Structures are given as structure tokens and as C-alpha cells.
């Protein structure tokens, strides 16, 4: 056997290699006496280096290692989403960790390894490598959810996330095994090419396998009816970890789903009805249950379930334009969701707070700038123009109407209206409610300010120039079709 057809090219993996090296450096330096404080700086350095390498790889279209690593526009855009999510959540983490006295260098190493797993998931044509990337992403997240070791809520969040995540991995793996049985291959390119002969020879294995794969990824992105873990885990985990959860694994799960469903199983038409049901359930349950929450983190958990529903609408419609609008929505969602969580982290740094709505009262008079930013992010989550959230929903729902899914678009718009209520509750609590006790002062430092600036600029910038960004995502998606 020779390796000449394999294209073993390590330069394809430069972003991942830089993340891995920095992660190990953080761990090894962290055990020495003077190296403990370098975790944050090294983590940022690794992420920025990986971002630089990814941007340099932007225009290429190469596959290597027998098709197990593929760097095209799709994976580059997703890698940029993951790295930006990582940078922003790292910036907001250090202050919170220092305040709660859990500032260990292992936190930064775990975040870096998790992002490494996400990048592996988004850059592969092989189902085995996608599964391995999913595990590399998830295992650090189980630890991060339980990172606050002396807080019982954090422990509980870690255990709940582990049990349900491992259960989902088992389903996903069984589904991959059945698809492997139907086609004798795990390479998505071969599956796409041989789809019709597979569907004739072994239809039961194929359909059962795809159903189980959908269940497995549905758990990860928080689709209903697999969303039970999300509110408890989001509430119990430390707030910067929740910020990272709400963006990273969701985007990675959608990256893998888009590659599997829109490239591998493109010819399977029956998936559309299943995705239709999932999208409707997810939007409805996410938005309606968020109305009744008293804790801001739980409300944001249900709201991120609802946003996963909107992206599922884009996946249901299928086709190039719709999925590209889903990509654009994910890009905008990264910015404004992380912005909202950044402000929540700043608020949670104070002692004795528990992220309730009643703690937000009177914020506008003490910190008007922060309150305004929070209002911008809430408007963007709800979908008011001219923010990125509005244009994202516009593209997704108009794509649904063009694809003939009128009812899907109607349900989507109605649930968006419902969501406006609970997002505006936050704004009203900040600005218009009389405070019965004075608002505790919040400490600010340059890293937090930088994170807030990045997210605000991203949320507004994506909204002010939507057409160039949607073209970018269309171009990214077209690169593997």
C-alpha cells in the first residue's frame, strides 16, 4: 500500500496545530510556579495565530489525508466563527474566574482543545473524523460545565451534560455504523456518489442510520425534543462557559449537519419532512417556554434553542441560497448572543448575584453605556432592523417562502413575534423599572471592553452591510457543491 494518493500535507492543518501547541504549552507551563498566569495570554495568542492561518487559507480548496481533512470556503468560514467565539469568550472569562476564585490555567487549555475539536468537525469529509471531532469538542465541555468545583449547581450541570451528551454520542455512533453498513464506506463523497444504489440495496439500514445521526446531532444543537439538558446546563455552568456553549457546539453541530445532509445525503428527499417537524417544534417550544423563565440564563438557554430552530428552517428548505442564509444567521448569532452573555458575565462577577431579572433594575442610571449595549443585543436577538438578527431572519424566511414552505415561514414569523416579549422584558427591566435597592457597581477592564466592542461592531456591521456578507456565505457554501 502506498501513501502517494493520500496527500499527506501538514500545512493544511496549521490552524489546528497552533491551537494544539498552545493548549499543551498552557498545561505544561501551568504546573510551574511562575507559569500559572500565562494561560490567558497564551490562549489568546493561540487563537489569534489560528485565526491568521485560517484567513490565509481562505481561498483554497484542498483535501488531504485521503479526504479526511478538507479545507474549503465552508470550513474556513466555520473555523472563523469558532475562533471568534473562542476569542470573545476567553476575553470575558478571566475577570469572572478571578472573581469566583477559580482562575486555573486548565480553563484556557480546555477551551482551546474544544475549539480544536470543532475545527476538526467542520473540516472533514469522513464520518469517522466528524465523530472524533465531536468527541474532542464535547469532552472538554463536560469538564468546563463542571469547572466551578465547589458550586453544587456547576457539578450538577456537568453530570447532566455528560450523561445526555454521551447518550447522544452513542446514538450518533450507531447511526454512523448503520450508514457504513448500507454503503460499505464512511466517506461522504462516496456516499453521495453511490446514494441511489445504496437506497435500492439496503434502504432500511440507510434510513435508520440517517435517523439516528439526526437524533445524535439534534441533542448537540438543542433541537426539540432533545433539548432537555439545555436549560439546566446553561443555568448551572459558569457564565463564560455558558456563553461559549451557546455558540460553539451549536455552530459545530450545524457545520457537521450541513455537510452530512446537504452534501452526503443530498438526494434523500424524505429528510425534508423530518426537518420540517423538528424546526417547527424547536421554534415553538423554545420561544414559548422562554416566556415563563425567571432566571436570565435559563431564558437565554430557551432563546438559543429557538435560534437553533430558525437555522433548522434554513436546513429544511435545502439548496444553496437557504443554507447560505443559515450560515449568515449563525455568523450574526455568534456576535449578538456572545455580546448579551458578555454583559451577563460582567453582571455576574458581583458577589451574591444569581442572574435574575430583578437584579437588572436600575442598571440604566448607573451604567448607561452597558444598558444601551444590552438593549442593542436584545433587539438583535429579537430581530429588529437594522441589526444582523433582522436580516438573518429575513433571508431565512424569504428563502422558505421561495422554496414553497409557506406554513414554515408563517410559524417562524409568529414565534419571532412571541420572542420579542421576553427580550424586551430585559430592556424594560434595565431602563423603565424603578429599583428598590441601589444597583451594585460593576468593575470594568480593558479585556471586557474589547469583547464588548468586538461583539457590538459585529452585530451592527453584519446588519448594516448584509448583502456583502450573504454573498460571502453563499460563496463559502458553494465551494463544496
Amino acid at each position, binding site marked *: 500500500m502506498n501513501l502517494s494518493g493520500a496527500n499527506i500535507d501538514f500545512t493544511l492543518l496549521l490552524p489546528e496545530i497552533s491551537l494544539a501547541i498552545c493548549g499543551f504549552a498552557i498545561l505544561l507551563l501551568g504546573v510551574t510556579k511562575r507559569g500559572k498566569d500565562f494561560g490567558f495570554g497564551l490562549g489568546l495568542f493561540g487563537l489569534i495565530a489560528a485565526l491568521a492561518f485560517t484567513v490565509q487559507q481562505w481561498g483554497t480548496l484542498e483535501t488531504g489525508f485521503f479526504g479526511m481533512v478538507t479545507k474549503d470556503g465552508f470550513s474556513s468560514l466555520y473555523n472563523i466563527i469558532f475562533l471568534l467565539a473562542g476569542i470573545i469568550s476567553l476575553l470575558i472569562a478571566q475577570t469572572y474566574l478571578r472573581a469566583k476564585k477559580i482562575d486555573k490555567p486548565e480553563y484556557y487549555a480546555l477551551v482551546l482543545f474544544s475549539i480544536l475539536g470543532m475545527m476538526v468537525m467542520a473540516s472533514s469529509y469522513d464520518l*469517522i473524523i466528524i*465523530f*472524533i471531532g465531536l*468527541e474532542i469538542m464535547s*469532552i472538554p465541555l*463536560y*469538564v468546563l460545565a*463542571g469547572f466551578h*468545583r*465547589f458550586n*453544587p*449547581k456547576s*457539578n*450538577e*450541570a*456537568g*453530570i*447532566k451534560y*455528560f*450523561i445526555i451528551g*454521551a*447518550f447522544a*454520542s*452513542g*446514538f450518533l*455512533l*450507531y447511526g*454512523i*455504523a*448503520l450508514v*457504513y*453498513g448500507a454503503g*460499505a*464506506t*464512511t466517506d461522504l463523497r462516496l456516499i453521495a456518489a453511490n446514494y441511489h444504489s445504496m437506497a435500492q440495496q439496503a434502504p432500511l439500514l440507510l434510513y435508520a442510520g440517517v435517523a439516528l445521526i439526526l437524533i445524535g446531532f439534534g441533542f448537540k444543537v438543542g433541537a426539540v425534543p432533545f433539548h*432537555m439538558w439545555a*436549560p*439546566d446546563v446553561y*443555568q*448551572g455552568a459558569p457564565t463564560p462557559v455558558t456563553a461559549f456553549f451557546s455558540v460553539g457546539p451549536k455552530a459545530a453541530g450545524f457545520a457537521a449537519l450541513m455537510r452530512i445532509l446537504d452534501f452526503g445525503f443530498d438526494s434523500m428527499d424524505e429528510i425534508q419532512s423530518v426537518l420540517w417537524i423538528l424546526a417547527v417544534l424547536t421554534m415553538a417550544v423554545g420561544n414559548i417556554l422562554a416566556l415563563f423563565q425567571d432566571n436570565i440564563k435559563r431564558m437565554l438557554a430557551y432563546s438559543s434553542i429557538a435560534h437553533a430552530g430558525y437555522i433548522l428552517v434554513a436546513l429544511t428548505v435545502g439548496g444553496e441560497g437557504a443554507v447560505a442564509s443559515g450560515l449568515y444567521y449563525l455568523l450574526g448569532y455568534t456576535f449578538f448572543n456572545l455580546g448579551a452573555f458578555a454583559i451577563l458575565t460582567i453582571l455576574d462577577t458581583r458577589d451574591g448575584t444569581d442572574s435574575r431579572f430583578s437584579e437588572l433594575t436600575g442598571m440604566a442610571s448607573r451604567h448607561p453605556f452597558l444598558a444601551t449595549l444590552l438593549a442593542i443585543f436584545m433587539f438583535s436577538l429579537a430581530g429588529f432592523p437594522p441589526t444582523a438578527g433582522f436580516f438573518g431572519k429575513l433571508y431565512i424566511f424569504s428563502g422558505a417562502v421561495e422554496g414553497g414552505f409557506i406554513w414554515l415561514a408563517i410559524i417562524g414569523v409568529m414565534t419571532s413575534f412571541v420572542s420579542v416579549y421576553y427580550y424586551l422584558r430585559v430592556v424594560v427591566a434595565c431602563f423603565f423599572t424603578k429599583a428598590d435597592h441601589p444597583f451594585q457597581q460593576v468593575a470594568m477592564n480593558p479585556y471586557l471592553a474589547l469583547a464588548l466592542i468586538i461583539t457590538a461592531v459585529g452585530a451592527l456591521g453584519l446588519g448594516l452591510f448584509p448583502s456583502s456578507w450573504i454573498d460571502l456565505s453563499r460563496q463559502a457554501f458553494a465551494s463544496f457543491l
Partner: protein
Amino acid sequence: MSFSPELHHWLILSTILFSIGIYGVLTRRNAVGVLMSVELLLNSAAMNFLIFNHYASKPFIDGAIMALFIIAVAAAEAVIAMALFVAIFRSRKTVDVTQINTLKG
């Protein structure tokens, strides 16, 4: 007495193991028991890979390689899970999953 197992017999066996694993995850009270059931799920999928490797893609060994990867991944997950259980045992003195329910829902 000339029974020799066919593909569907093997698949029935692995489906039975998968179902036992699901039953275990949903029913066990001890967290370590849940972990054992999760291992059973992952290993029944590994068995499926080996079965299909034998019957569908005979000269290649990609199914066996995947089974080896699954063993490594299952080992890593078990390690992390036990660490989380030790943490919760220290704070709550129990690993009973029905007792771990302070977060509402």
C-alpha cells in the same frame, strides 16, 4: 445442528445490546451504572462496525480501525465521567442521579 450465524443474527444481537444500554441509561439510579450503560451503547455500535466490515467491505479493515478508535474514545469519556462523579460525591455525598436535581426541571 448446523447453525452458522448470518448477518441478520449478528445485527439482532447488536440491537439487543443497544436496547439494553438504552434501558440502563434511562433506569439506573447509580451514576456509575449509567456510565456502564453508556459504555454498552458505544460498544454495541463498535460491534456493528465490525459486523459490517466482515460482511460488506471484506478486504478492507476500516470497520476494525473505527472500533479501535471507539475503544479509545470510550476510555476517555469514562475517565472524565468518573472525575465528575468524584466531584459531586465530595459535595453531595451521593452519586444517586435521582438526588441530583436542584436545578429546576
